[in-house]
């Protein structure tokens, strides 16, 4: 907790209204301004009490406060440092420790996630029971999307026209396992727009989960592996379609700052979000009409952490016949926030309900976002509200459907089969 960064906060409060926990509870301690004040107290010698740690744990890390702050306070860096201090200095309850151990043993590893899919599907029926044992387990079961058939992506997808770029594609742990069709769609869109797409087969977790949970050593290990994998691929840029992964990859140089050689390698790696990349590249492939109304959800790790709000909207508006609708309170987190919905299921659920209500109010046919976590979270909230299955899709899938002239009715229908799309790659 760098005192200089803490001092940058002038206590103006401009960040309060976009902070999801302040929206829920209306308390200073659970606002960005209050949390920065708590950090200041700790730096000033107040020990890390359970109360203090609780307010840091309650932060979703959505970074809406970074967007809102006119003074340029680096809350992102502050909370990252703080989480590491909490992990070091604060003794967690056995229950908390068990849930955390399970999540960290599972999520960053694709093979383990895959092994989990069947039990998770079964656990859906057990959800009420799990909920009683431990709300976190309940949340996990509730969020699990229907099992998707695995999609095997080839190591190289060639450009479908004169190649304009050679890019690497990060497949992501959760994205890769639960939403493989999104990666397939991303690869196709990139290829149709004139990119050779390299998909290193043995890429691991990017480390996002570890960074956001105060486990910097583990994060650095994942980061070094990811950098090495894409260096070997020899690409102009790494394109990422999962907002959470993209935002932490963009921070690799900071994460590895202590090691000059790795920092330099991190700096050389150009990471771009899919929407950001496509807008910069400019469209060449023909867009077929897609008569569908879309509610676009700003994933925090895209809108706040990477400042990417206009680009996905521009891409969606570029699809003829597509009607884009705005969701009220778009700056406020849906409560997914990486692992938050597993560690703090109650507030996550409340935020999810709030978001679902506003999404449903748009009356749009399809909910589009660039983060698998958000999509799972909002879909679960819609289900809870008794509104059945909402159709959800990633920006890449919408573009893919338009580029290939597919029927919009097929977009975002569950359960999906990965096979047909895999063949199309």
């Amino acid at each position, binding site marked *: 907790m760098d005192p200089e960064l803490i001092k940058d906060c002038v206590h103006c409060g401009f960040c309060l209204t976009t902070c999801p926990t302040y929206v829920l509870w209306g308390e200073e301690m659970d606002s960005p301004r209050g949390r920065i004040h708590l950090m200041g107290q700790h730096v000033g010698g107040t020990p890390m009490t359970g109360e203090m740690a609780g307010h840091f744990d309650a932060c979703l890390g959505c970074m809406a406060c970074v967007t809102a702050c006119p*003074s340029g306070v680096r809350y992102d860096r502050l909370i990252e440092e703080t989480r590491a201090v909490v992990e070091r200095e604060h003794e967690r309850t056995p229950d908390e420790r068990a849930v955390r151990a399970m999540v960290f043993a599972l999520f960053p590893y694709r093979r383990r996630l895959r092994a989990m899919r069947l039990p998770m599907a079964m656990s859906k029926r057990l959800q009420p029971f799990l909920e009683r044992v431990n709300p976190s387990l309940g949340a996990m079961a509730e969020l699990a999307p229907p099992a998707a058939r695995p999609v095997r992506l080839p190591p190289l997808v060639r450009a479908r026209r004169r190649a304009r770029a050679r890019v690497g594609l990060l497949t992501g742990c959760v994205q890769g396992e639960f939403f493989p069709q999104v990666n397939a769609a991303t690869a196709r869109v990139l290829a149709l727009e004139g990119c050779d797409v390299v998909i290193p087969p043995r890429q691991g977790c990017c480390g996002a989960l570890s960074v956001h949970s105060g486990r910097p050593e583990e994060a650095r290990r994942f980061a070094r592996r990811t950098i090495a994998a894409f260096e070997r691929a020899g690409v102009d840029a790494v394109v990422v379609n999962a907002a959470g992964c993209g935002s932490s990859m963009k921070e690799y140089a900071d994460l590895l700052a202590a090691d000059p050689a790795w920092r330099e390698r991190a700096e050389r790696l150009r990471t771009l979000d899919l929407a950001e990349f496509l807008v910069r590249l400019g469209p060449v492939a023909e867009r077929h009409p897609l008569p569908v109304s879309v509610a676009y959800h700003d994933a925090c790790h895209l809108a706040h952490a990477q400042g990417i709000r206009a680009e996905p909207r521009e891409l969606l508006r570029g699809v003829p016949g597509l009607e884009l609708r705005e969701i009220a309170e778009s700056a406020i987190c849906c409560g997914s926030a990486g692992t938050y919905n597993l560690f703090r299921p109650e507030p996550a659920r409340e935020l999810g309900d709030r978001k679902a209500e506003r999404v449903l109010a748009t009356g749009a046919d399809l909910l589009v976002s660039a983060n698998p976590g958000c999509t799972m979270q909002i879909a679960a909230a819609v289900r809870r509200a008794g509104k059945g299955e909402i159709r959800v899709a990633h920006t890449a899938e919408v573009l893919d459907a338009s580029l290939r002239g597919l029927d919009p009715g097929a977009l975002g229908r569950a359960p999906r089969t990965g096979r047909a799309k895999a063949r199309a790659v």
Partner: protein
Amino acid sequence: MSALESLTARLRDALPPDALITDPVRLRTYECDGLTVHRATPGVVVLPDSAEQVAAVVGLCAEHGVPFVARGSGTGLSGGALPRTDGVLIVTSRMRRILEVDVPGRRAVVEPGVTNLAITEAVRDQGLYYAPDPSSQQICSIGGNVAENSGGAHCLKYGFTVNHVLAVEIVTPDGEIVELSEQDAGYDLLGAFIGSEGTLGIATKITVRLSRAPEAVTTLLAAFTGIEAGGRAVSAVIAAGVVPAAIEMMDALAIEAAEAAVRCEYPEGAGAVLVVELDGPKAAVDREFAEVERLCRESGAFEIRIAASAEERAAIWKGRKSAFAAVGRISPAYIVQDGVVPRTALPGVLAGIDRLQEEYGIRVANVFHAGDGNLHPLVLFDDAVPGEEERAEAVSGLILDLCIEHGGSITGEHGVGVDKSRYMPRMFSADDLDAMQLVRCAFDPRGLSNPGKVFPTPRLCGEVPGVRRGVHPLVEAGLAEQF
């Protein structure tokens, strides 16, 4: 057991468990508002959810003789919400329901913790809005606005909070719920309450007037080489009989800060920019707009930008609205000053501020509501340099003296609070202050509602029967006088 301890025990029974904060670490996060130089950890904090809960808390405070302070969003810039270590801080941040929107009647009834902007957002679809627009509108509470009689860029044409509040339900300092309305016969108690900075009770429900969004709005940004030329343009516009919705000026240093914060991309090389907004029926706006543009050019504007869309308008305003907080980018610390001078005295006062900057080696960024002469000098300092904070404080105080000298006032819209109470005697005679304190005594004879704010010397309001006998200790200590 101290009065506060026995009160806390009673509060525990009266409130839901999560509405009472006693943990010291948590309490400290409430130690200051937007003015961080004054700090005090509150004795306890309560987060009531309803007027009834506020009344219960205030009633218990009265019973125990414990002072209480209201707090909205804590964005105040005069330390008005500075807590009492021996008292209760009553925070309205959970009272944020919009209770009623009456579109044909153009009114809304809201709880005090609702943010200023939330009102507009709730009625925008109906073509309505809530007119007063402090720069902090996205976060400051309507209760705080009422307490401070807050204004904003558009108050030149549309007036301050007092012009847009139709009724307020308050909890009086003895815990009674009372409604003060514009329609009440007799004294204008509503008028007295608005701007009372929490010293007359706590607002628990506010009925605001909604205004119809104007048919046309045009915004222009004019860049000048220096502040004098900008000032000339302001005078010329007002003299021509045009009443802009807003006319705002920023000097070079303020522009630099805004640029660093929000990349507002104001014209390069500008020593001052003027933001002029006109609104009303389209034909009138077009006509006046041509006039304003001409007057700006004649006064020396070297570049004029006209917002063609809502986005471009927002971009122009972004720089201005973020200016205060943005100064954090160019200076480790700063004081936001608030003073008013007659428009014609602007050049003299600005020259005076320049002299102070040189004399004290302290930089001052200027942002102001130029149309009504409301200055917001931002006095910059580095608290790591010994002595600089004191010099900045001195400059900040001398700027107020300049305002008074030129026939102005020590606050335009941020209130007196704790920070400016010491300047009150420079502006008001002892008799004036007494008259004000008599009003206060009528509402709050025991001085429990936000004591220590606004007035330099607390005055007691005669003996309250049965509570105290003999000379009051404050009087004995020479800290207060008795009516």
